[in-house]
């Protein structure tokens, strides 16, 4: 079977007469015999280009997908200025139409698209050997149809096409047969022309577009091979191509022009023609992919109308001609601009671009859209994570701009709404964020509705009150998490409930405080720039002097942490600390379990590890009694007392088999230290002592006297007295407010 080759332009010349360095490098490499599977056939040149013609023997299976032969003759064309990548041209006349060809002005010889990188990027590592290897690889992979990555956009076909058409993703979807063309077009100007954004997103405002456009979407019949074999340069040429696939460009355009005839500014409005070419492997197999092409005729609606004989201009007036038809041959002189069709971002593609296999479809109710929250939310939305309801009542003020995700355009608007607007504008046909502008403490129906479908409730409010409300005051099944910065903005704290909510957010908060007073690394964690407060309203108030760079680091960690939480079911407490040297250290803290006792209107939440500590201390001192002070926290709004820790019996205490007198040495200093370390969240809450073996935990007369003493003193602060008696078998009896 004789193989026919295209005649190459130019005259044969000896290899050393090649003018371009790269052509000489290639011909030298091949004649040197260094590389197997390539041989030099000819060296040629014409007025402008050098050509090196080689035979390549790719790795081709006996049953290939595409008809690549065991030997392929390729001419490589070299640009004298080296501005264009050396271009491989397949010389075999029946070289098949395969993916990854350059969409050139001529169909033959076919031009192979070897590299995804633009040539200017390739230049620094271009060698003739790498070029040959890539050419060999291209042919081998194409034979097996393994070169084409399924999610690869088409842009690589369109080398040198600078103008993009950003299109709704369904246009590229092979599963959809007819794409609705209720789409609007916005033009964004740039120095090389303009980008056309074709969208159905209602948020995209087109009313003030300086360059109005209309869109026409055409659907071709599915084919087993490509239809458009080279770049059509005129409307008539495109029409001819499309006629082959039963697609009537002229007719569709005519109908649309009719439809648009009442639009203002006919002479200033352009048209973008989007062509969908569905492809399938065999005649009866389903459509596998859709090749999308986008063109802009260099003519206004009016000119197109004239070209089609629909309108005529007369002394400055445009008149519609009735019943008049025309063929596109008259439109032959309407040139076409080819655009690079680019699918708009979807949540799934955003996830993929963030290197996640699938997107997480959690419904997250986020409370608080401040500096930290806005950045975490946007990081997650950008990675395709979640569907969001953002609840926030604030508006964006100038000082927010120093660290907030939002920009100046949002100044004065509600943060939640602006965030939703920005987030939803990134995607086409998907609206991952719903804003609710309200105070979470006075929830609206919208809030209740969101909570009822939430998978995760995330507190970014930087408010203990809000966090407690989220933990205890809202009816919702979803697990809660809280992310906040310490007052100096150096550390990020994550409190995450387990899926079963056995560890509630408020309890995790208590375990976190306990670690703050225990761990040396957390000594200055809640420190407020040298202004220790006796009683803080909140230990999360972000001071107004936090660098945005640190915040952005911690927001990055925070967003990944939310993702991690969504992938695990257990409770966790984590702290990330940034250092002066830009290092970040993670502390993983142990969440405690709490037991509950109720005393009238009061509820006591006892950290089980604190309970254990009391029992252990008792045992260590037997047969003597011992005791100490209790450390914990009040939630007076809910009449909760959390028992978190104890201080060891002071050295000046008296411990006897039937007697314990708590001393005072160091107690005051220690309680003050604890208050300082926790910004007052932990403090003295009562007394405990032990009873010896065989004596139970019933209060003695002395114990009742002690309780009265506690009561007298705590009454002065408006707080109820608390006393605990530890007895044998790890039993502890609690007395709150009164002893029955």
């Amino acid at each position, binding site marked *: *079977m004789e193989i026919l080759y295209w005649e190459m332009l130019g005259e044969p010349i000896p290899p050393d007469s090649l003018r371009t360095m790269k052509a000489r490098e290639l011909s030298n490499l091949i004649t040197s015999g260094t590389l197997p599977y390539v041989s030099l056939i000819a060296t040629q040149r014409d007025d402008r280009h050098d050509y090196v013609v080689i035979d390549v023997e790719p790795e081709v299976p*006996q049953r290939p997908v595409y008809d690549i032969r065991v030997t392929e003759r390729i001419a490589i064309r070299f640009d004298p200025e080296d501005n264009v990548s050396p271009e491989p041209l397949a010389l075999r006349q029946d070289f098949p139409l395969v993916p990854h060809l350059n969409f050139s002005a001529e169909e033959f010889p076919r031009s192979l698209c070897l590299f995804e990188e633009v040539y200017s990027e390739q230049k620094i590592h271009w060698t003739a050997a790498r070029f040959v290897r890539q050419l060999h690889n291209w042919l081998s992979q194409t034979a097996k149809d393994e070169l084409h990555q399924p999610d690869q956009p088409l842009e690589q076909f369109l080398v040198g096409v600078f103008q993009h058409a950003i299109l709704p993703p369904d246009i590229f979807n092979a599963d959809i047969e007819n794409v609705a063309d209720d789409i609007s077009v916005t033009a964004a100007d740039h120095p090389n022309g303009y980008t056309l954004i074709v969208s159905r997103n209602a948020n995209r405002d087109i009313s003030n577009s300086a360059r109005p456009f209309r869109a026409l979407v055409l659907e071709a019949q599915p084919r087993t091979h490509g239809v458009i074999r080279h770049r059509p340069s005129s409307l008539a040429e495109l029409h001819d191509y499309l006629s082959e696939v039963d697609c009537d460009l002229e007719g569709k355009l005519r109908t649309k022009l009719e439809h648009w005839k009442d639009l203002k500014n006919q002479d200033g409005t352009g048209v973008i023609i989007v062509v969908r070419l569905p492809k399938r492997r065999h005649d009866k197999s389903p459509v596998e992919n859709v090749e999308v092409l986008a063109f802009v005729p260099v003519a206004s609606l009016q000119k197109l109308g004239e070209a089609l004989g629909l309108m005529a201009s007369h002394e400055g007036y445009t008149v519609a001609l009735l019943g008049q038809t025309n063929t596109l041959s008259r439109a032959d002189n309407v040139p076409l601009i080819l655009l690079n069709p680019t699918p708009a971002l979807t949540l799934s593609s955003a996830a993929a671009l963030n290197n996640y296999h699938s997107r997480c479809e959690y419904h997250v109710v986020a409370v608080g859209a401040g500096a930290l929250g806005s950045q975490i939310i946007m990081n997650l939305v950008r990675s395709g994570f979640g569907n969001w309801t953002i609840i926030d009542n604030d508006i964006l003020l100038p000082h927010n701009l120093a660290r907030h995700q939002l920009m100046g355009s949002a100044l004065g608007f509600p943060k939640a709404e602006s965030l939703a607007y920005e987030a939803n504008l990134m995607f086409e046909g998907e609206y991952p964020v719903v804003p609710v502008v309200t105070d979470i403490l006075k929830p609206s129906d919208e809030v209740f509705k969101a909570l009822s479908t939430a998978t995760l409730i995330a507190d970014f409010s930087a408010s203990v009150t809000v966090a407690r409300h989220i933990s205890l005051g809202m009816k919702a099944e979803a697990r809660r998490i809280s992310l906040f910065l310490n007052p100096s903005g150096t550390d990020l704290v994550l409190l995450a409930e387990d899926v079963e909510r056995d560890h509630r957010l408020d309890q995790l908060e208590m375990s976190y405080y306990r670690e703050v007073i225990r761990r040396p690394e957390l000594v200055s964690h809640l420190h407020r720039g040298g202004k220790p407060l006796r009683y803080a309203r909140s230990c999360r108030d972000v001071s107004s002097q936090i660098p945005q760079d640190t915040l952005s680091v911690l927001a990055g960690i925070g967003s990944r942490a939310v993702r991690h939480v969504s992938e695990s079911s257990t409770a966790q407490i984590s702290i990330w600390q940034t250092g002066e040297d830009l290092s970040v250290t993670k502390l993983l803290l142990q969440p405690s379990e709490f037991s509950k006792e109720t005393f009238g209107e009061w509820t006591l939440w006892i950290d089980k590890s604190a309970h254990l500590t009391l029992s252990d201390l008792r045992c260590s001192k037997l047969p003597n009694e011992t005791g100490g002070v209790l450390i914990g926290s009040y939630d007076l709004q809910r009449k909760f007392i959390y028992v978190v820790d104890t201080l060891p019996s002071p050295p000046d205490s008296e411990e006897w088999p039937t007697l314990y007198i708590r001393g005072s040495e160091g107690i005051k200093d220690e309680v003050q230290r604890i208050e300082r370390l926790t910004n007052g969240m932990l403090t003295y809450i009562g007394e405990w002592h032990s009873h010896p073996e065989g004596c139970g935990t019933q209060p003695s007369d002395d114990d009742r006297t002690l309780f009265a003493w506690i009561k007298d003193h705590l009454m002065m602060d408006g707080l109820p007295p608390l006393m605990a008696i530890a007895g044998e078998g790890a039993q502890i009896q609690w007395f709150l407010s009164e002893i029955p």
Partner: protein
Amino acid sequence: MHCLTFFPLGNADCCRIDLGNGKKILFDYANMRCSDDENDKRIDLPSELRRDLEETGKKSFDVVAITHLDKDHICGLSEFFQLDHDKSFQDDDRPQIDELWVPAAIITEDGCENEAAIVQAEARFRLKQGTGIRVFSRPNRLKDWLEAEGLKLEDRLDLITDAGQTIPGLELETDGLEFFVHSPFAIRQNDCDLEDRNIDSLIVQATFTVEGVNTKVLLGADAGYEVIADMVKVTRDHAREERLEWDIFKLCHHCSYTALGPDKGEEETEPIDEVKWLFETQSQSRALIVSTSWPIENKDSLQPPHYQAAAYYRRSVNKKNGEFRVTMEHPKPTAPEPLVIKIDASGATVKKEIPLGISIITETSAPRAGLQ
């Protein structure tokens, strides 16, 4: 995926079949390299085979088939394999042969010398033991030999496969491979007084299957055109033409014209009709011919390879958009390497990797440097 590997050994044969399920089959073993000649481009076969066994963690070949006893098919065999018949061929470093395949002539031939005598002794030992062996065809002389050894043919029938049968022990469904035996024929052997190694050699069609796609390989030993003509006639008589279809043909006798026809010809050997049918009608699209031989040089020579035969083979595969590969020319005559053919659902693919300089440098030790 299965793999076929032909080793560059000059005019000599060794083909390894690696099945997807891990089984290894060797067709012939001829280590032809002169180890003290630095310029010998033939591969160090024992090292190459041993390296592969180590990589795959195997200590034996499931099958070693010896097509006939000529030196270019068995050279050095006794230095490489563990042989059961004599302790001096046994140590732990030697790979074992789980099953030895031999044509009946290997058992019955008289006057074997050197390596041939050792291989014959091993085959005879195994046949006497009644294990680890398969014999092809049952000429009268085999019966006579068995009786002389005090054995009955009937007791060894399960170890014998005749031409026209598939070889037991390997199945398309489980192994993805089936062998069909074309030669030797007992009838032909009974007509002759003496064994003729080339005539009595083992010739099979191997059918590989992957995901329902079959790839057929003809492994022609050193048969001449008469044997091929007989094979073609018998196969047609039995209406089993598909047993002579092929995607890959390992040429007979290192690209000798004698496998095509009686006359070498000036430019191109003309095949006799049966051979022409085999190469032009039975070859499939993109057929591959493998010549296990020295490079084809464009000058007349007494010994194969004959360029006139190569010219015919090239022309016949070009018609099918196929290719003709010579083991000592692959990938280039200056540095031959094993010819590796991958077999998967796309059929057979000759592996053609353009090596990366850096990966070669980092895989091997650097030459000596420094002042001596």
